[in-house]
């Protein structure tokens, strides 16, 4: 059993353990979850330290590390040939940082769930199941395996939002579920189409292996997604473009992009704090990861054609999310919209198809991963105390909760892109890369970069405005004296969670090489893979 | 037409006729006595089939046993039952129930049809027996033969039927005994 399998299935073990323990030991569930996640985090740290920076990843199996390949399902389908599904996992420069991020965010989420009392058994076992699925998604290199993890992820989330959420939780849970399912169901069609178009050069059988799908030589001539002799069209869209679009939409819902983002504010607002943390910290990244790992790598030709639109969507998401955030009165919703805006940078950077842009986008994913997690956690702090997050109900928190305000200010400034924090590196390089795109000739015009930078301005506007409205000025609460006693400053547990997160943001902002070194070779490989079709 | 045939027809008519009367009569007592005649004529018909011992048994068991049992049961039952059974009111002959009649006639037709078909195609054992002449003739000592058969070939059924008869009698006695006053 390899390290990756261990990493993926450790949480499953925790789930089993939690389910088996009798309810009288319910106090131990969170410790079990915490223990397993800590082990997982250490394991991911070990992977990080053992990672070979020179490996190129993306489309070559030898570019991946910690590979594990086991035949999983082998079925003779008669005239349809041999069904070949592998348990095939590995990491490269794109997935490794996300893997570490996931382990970290999971740790935060467990910490944030410390005070959950409602049926802890179900809660923690679902959380661990989610953990497994997420790890699996980032490691899977077999499309079928990927899809299974992708769907498995939905189920615990649905219950976590639907059971432990806020007042409108059912609506939010169903909306989230349907939205994601909408994307993934069509993804399944494309997976099947790809399966029948691609053969494994060694066995001659059709395959779900993503790496084989990335090699044009493995496509059967004249098959639905073939590079050569492909005359298939659906509604006038060439088949490969269609495949790209459908996969893109599936992942774009997760990112989320602007017209498909409406699940996000609802889900975030209704979800309990830890789930918001996971949603913002990991789930949104799956979208970006999928676009890079699947859309761009398997359909580089279509990606090269479509990237103007992707850039446009990214730019629109940035501005639109920021403008919406400006209009929010609910702190959590504000942060949810800011996520839309910040994830727009990811799309813009990826679309730029420059090494700087894509690296910036990946960095932005990492940075947004723990910054948004920290922000949601911070919202959770006051929501836990007074069950209110309406911005105008608070005033002058700075004098009342100085440490909390300190954390909030750091998190706000970090996420509005103050240099020295990680978000700055991500956003700056997305903009630099996007601006550079016109010189390189990837079809992204410069005004998109400028639009993106206006988004940075707007993000400063809404975050500072919030800071001014909620934290500065004379102390005044809607709940009066009662709130004043309830609103105690951050406690040790919260400090333990927040401090490393923000310290990490600072560390990565000062030493971005910690992430860039791991991904450079991979990103360059991706750029060269796609740019040959430009 | 010789005497034998004439007698056969006479018995047959008597049997069928009395049976019809048994059915049609409303008075149970009368019907019982008419049934007595039917059984007698049936016994007569048995003779024509060269089954003298069966005929005797028929008379002894049925006429001497069953019928007497019935009449006694009838006579010895209490007054209300008697009145019920007599049921003298209404016509002398009850009108036939048309559905039942239809059914009975249907069966009759089917049986006749079967008979007609059957005549053209007798079973093998009969044909071979006819051919080899193993047919009971009026001169045969039936009783002797039956006795041997009962004690050899059919000893097991004979014993079973004896026990069965015993059980039936005990059962009947048990059923018809006066209920214990609680």
């Amino acid at each position, binding site marked *: 059993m390899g390290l990756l399998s261990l990493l993926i299935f450790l949480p499953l073990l925790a789930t089993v353990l939690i389910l088996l323990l009798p309810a009288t030991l319910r106090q131990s569930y969170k410790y079990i979850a915490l223990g397993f996640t800590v082990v997982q985090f250490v394991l991911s740290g070990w992977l990080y330290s053992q990672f070979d920076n020179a490996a190129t990843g993306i489309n070559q199996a030898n570019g991946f590390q910690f590979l594990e390949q086991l035949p999983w399902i082998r079925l003779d389908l008669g005239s349809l040939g041999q069904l070949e599904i592998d348990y095939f996992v590995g990491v490269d420069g794109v997935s490794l940082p996300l893997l570490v991020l996931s382990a970290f965010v999971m740790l935060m989420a467990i910490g944030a769930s410390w005070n959950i009392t409602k049926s802890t058994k179900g809660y923690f076992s679902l959380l661990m199941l989610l953990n497994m699925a997420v790890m699996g998604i980032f490691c899977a290199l077999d499309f079928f395996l990927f899809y299974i993890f992708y769907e498995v992820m939905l189920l615990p989330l649905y219950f976590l939002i639907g059971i432990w959420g806020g007042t409108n939780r059912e609506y939010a849970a169903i909306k989230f579920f349907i939205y994601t399912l909408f994307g993934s169901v069509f993804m399944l069609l494309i997976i099947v189409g790809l399966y029948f178009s691609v053969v494994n050069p060694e066995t001659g059988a059709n395959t779900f292996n993503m790496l084989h799908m990335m090699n044009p030589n493995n496509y059967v001539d004249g098959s639905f997604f073939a590079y050569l002799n492909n005359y298939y069209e659906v509604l006038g869209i060439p088949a490969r473009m269609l495949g790209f679009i459908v996969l893109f939409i599936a992942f774009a819902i997760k990112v989320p992009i602007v017209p498909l983002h409406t699940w996000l504010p609802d889900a975030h607002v209704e979800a309990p704090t830890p789930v918001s943390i996971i949603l913002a910290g990991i789930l949104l990244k799956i979208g970006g990861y999928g676009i890079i790992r699947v859309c761009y790598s398997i359909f580089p030709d279509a990606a090269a054609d479509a990237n103007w639109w992707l850039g446009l969507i990214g730019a629109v998401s940035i501005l639109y999310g920021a403008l919406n955030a400006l209009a929010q009165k609910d702190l959590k919703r504000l942060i949810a919209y800011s996520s839309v805006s910040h994830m727009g940078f990811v799309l813009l950077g990826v679309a730029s198809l420059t090494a700087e842009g894509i690296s910036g986008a990946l960095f932005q994913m990492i940075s947004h991963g723990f910054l948004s997690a920290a922000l949601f956690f911070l919202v959770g702090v006051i929501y836990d105390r007074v069950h209110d997050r309406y911005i105008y109900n608070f005033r002058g928190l700075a004098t009342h909760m100085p440490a909390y305000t300190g954390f909030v200010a750091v998190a706000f400034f970090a996420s509005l892109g103050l240099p020295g924090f990680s978000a700055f590196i991500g956003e700056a390089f997305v903009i630099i890369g996007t601006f550079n795109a016109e010189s390189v000739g990837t079809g992204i015009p410069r005004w998109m970069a400028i639009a993106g930078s206006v988004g940075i301005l707007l993000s400063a506007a809404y975050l500072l405005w919030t800071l001014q409205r909620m934290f500065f000025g004379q102390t005044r609460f809607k709940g009066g004296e009662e709130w004043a006693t309830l609103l105690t400053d951050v406690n040790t547990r919260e400090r333990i969670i927040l401090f490393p997160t923000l310290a990490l943001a600072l560390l990565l902002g000062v030493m971005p090489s910690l992430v860039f070194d791991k991904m450079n070779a991979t990103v360059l490989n991706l750029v060269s893979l796609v740019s040959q079709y430009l | 037409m010789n005497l034998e045939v004439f007698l056969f027809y006479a018995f047959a008519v008597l049997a*069928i006729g009395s049976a019809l009367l048994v059915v049609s009569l409303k008075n149970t007592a009368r019907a019982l006595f008419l*049934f007595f005649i039917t059984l007698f004529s049936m016994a007569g018909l048995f003779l024509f089939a060269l089954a003298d011992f*069966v005929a005797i048994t028929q008379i002894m068991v049925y006429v001497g046993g069953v019928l007497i049992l019935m009449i006694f049961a009838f006579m010895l039952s209490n007054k209300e039952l008697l009145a019920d059974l007599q049921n003298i009111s209404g016509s002398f002959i009850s009108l036939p129930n048309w559905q039942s*009649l239809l059914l009975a006639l249907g069966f009759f037709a089917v049986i006749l049809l079967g008979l007609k078909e059957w005549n053209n195609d007798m079973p093998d054992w009969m044909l071979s*027996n006819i051919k080899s002449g193993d047919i009971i003739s009026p001169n045969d000592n039936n009783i002797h033969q039956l006795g041997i*058969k009962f004690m050899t070939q059919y000893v097991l059924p004979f014993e079973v*039927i004896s026990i069965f008869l015993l059980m039936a009698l005990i059962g009947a006695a048990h059923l018809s005994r006066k209920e214990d006053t609680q």
Partner: protein
Amino acid sequence: MITLTHFLVVSACIFCIGLYTVIAKRNAIMILIGIELMINAAILNFVAFSKYDKINYGGQVFALFAIVLAAASVAVGLAIILNVYRHYKTINPDNITDLRD
């Protein structure tokens, strides 16, 4: 010449009359009589066929068995009828409809 068919026709007549009695009569004792008629018709058949079986005498033997059975059944049947009357104060089967749905 009295053929087998003669017997069979008579037997058929008696059987059908018995059948009718069993179905149509509104009197338990008459139903019993109908049964006896049908049994007799059967016995007649046994006996008539027995003529062609000198080796086994099966027809006659079973005719005798049938007679015994009939006697037993009458005994039991009568006992039942008496009990039924004692219970329901009637022997009209139309009035005993415990089997109704």
